[in-house]
C-alpha cells in the first residue's frame, strides 16, 4: 500500500481504481522482454492457426490467393513493410527463445548477463528482420 502512494504510477492506479499489479513493480527490460515473448508467441500461434484453418475452410488454392494479392499491385514499399511486420515477431520470438533455452541449461542467469543477453537479442532481432524482409 505504501508503495502505491509513494510511486507516481501507483498513485495514478489508485485514483483510476485500477489493479496495482502493473504499477507496483518498476518496469525493467527483462520484464518487458518476457511479456513480449509471450505476446509474440500467442500472436504467432494465432497466425499459424488461422493459416491451418483457412487451408481447411477457405476454398481455392494457395496460388490463387497469391495471384489475388499480386493483382492488387501493391507498391514495393508496402510489401517490404508487410514482410517486416510478419518476420519481426518471428525473429524476436526465435532469438529470445534461444535465450530461454540457455536459461534452462542454467547459463546466463545473473542480472547483468540478463541485460546483456537481452540487448543482444534485440539487436539480432532488428538485424535479422531487416535482412529477411529484404530477401
Amino acid at each position, binding site marked *: 500500500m505504501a508503495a502505491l502512494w509513494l510511486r507516481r504510477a501507483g498513485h495514478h492506479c489508485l485514483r483510476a481504481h485500477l489493479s496495482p499489479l502493473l504499477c507496483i513493480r518498476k518496469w525493467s527490460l527483462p520484464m518487458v522482454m518476457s511479456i513480449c515473448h509471450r505476446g509474440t*508467441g500467442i500472436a504467432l500461434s494465432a497466425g499459424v492457426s488461422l493459416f*491451418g484453418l483457412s487451408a481447411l475452410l477457405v476454398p481455392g488454392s494457395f496460388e490463387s490467393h497469391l495471384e489475388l494479392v499480386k493483382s492488387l499491385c501493391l507498391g514495393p514499399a508496402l510489401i517490404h513493410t508487410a514482410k517486416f511486420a510478419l518476420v519481426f515477431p518471428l525473429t524476436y520470438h526465435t532469438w529470445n527463445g534461444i535465450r*530461454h533455452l540457455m536459461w534452462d541449461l542454467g547459463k546466463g542467469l545473473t542480472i547483468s548477463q540478463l541485460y546483456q543477453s537481452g540487448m543482444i537479442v534485440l539487436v539480432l532481432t532488428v538485424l535479422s528482420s531487416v535482412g529477411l524482409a529484404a530477401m
Partner: protein
Amino acid sequence: PPLPASSSGPSDEPCAHVRRDRANTDFRFTRRFPFPRFVSSSRLSSSEPQWSDRLMSQHFSRTDQPQDAGSKAASLHWTGERVVSVLLLGLIPAAYLNPCSAVDYSLAAALTLHSHWQVQQSFQGIGQVVTDYVRGAALQKAAKAGFLVLSAFTFAGLCYFNYHDVGICKAVAMLWKL
C-alpha cells in the same frame, strides 16, 4: 527433541502432491507455498542456517525421496517441451536449406505441438488469475477442450495444406517472391 507429529490438513491444496512428512509441518519449516522436495541440500543450507544437516539429508536428499508419479510426469513433460523447442529451432534453417515434404510435415507437427503446449502454459498462468476471481470449473473445462480442438484442427489444416497444396516451405518461398 522429537518433532511434532505431522497433521495432514485440508488446506494448501496446491501442494497436495507434496508428502506431508514432519519437516513440512514443523512450524520452523512451514512455508506458504509448496516447498519442492527435490531441492538440493546446498541451496537449503544457504537460505536456512538453523536447519540441521541430519534433517536435510533425511528429508530432502534426492536418494531418500523418490519422485512420485505426478512430479515425474511433469518433469518429463517439461523435458519434452524443451526437446520440441530445439527441434523447431533446427527445422527453421532446414526449411530454408533443404525444403522437402518431410520438413513440411515435421514443421507442421512441431509448430502445432509447441504452440499448443506453450499457449496452454501461458493460459494456465492467466487461468490462475481467472480461478481467483471467477468460479466456473465447467467453463474452464470447456475452454481447455475448445483449445485442444483448435490445435487439432490447426494440425489437420497444415497437413492438408502439405498434402493437397504446395506445402509450407514452398508456400513461404512463393510468398516471399511477391
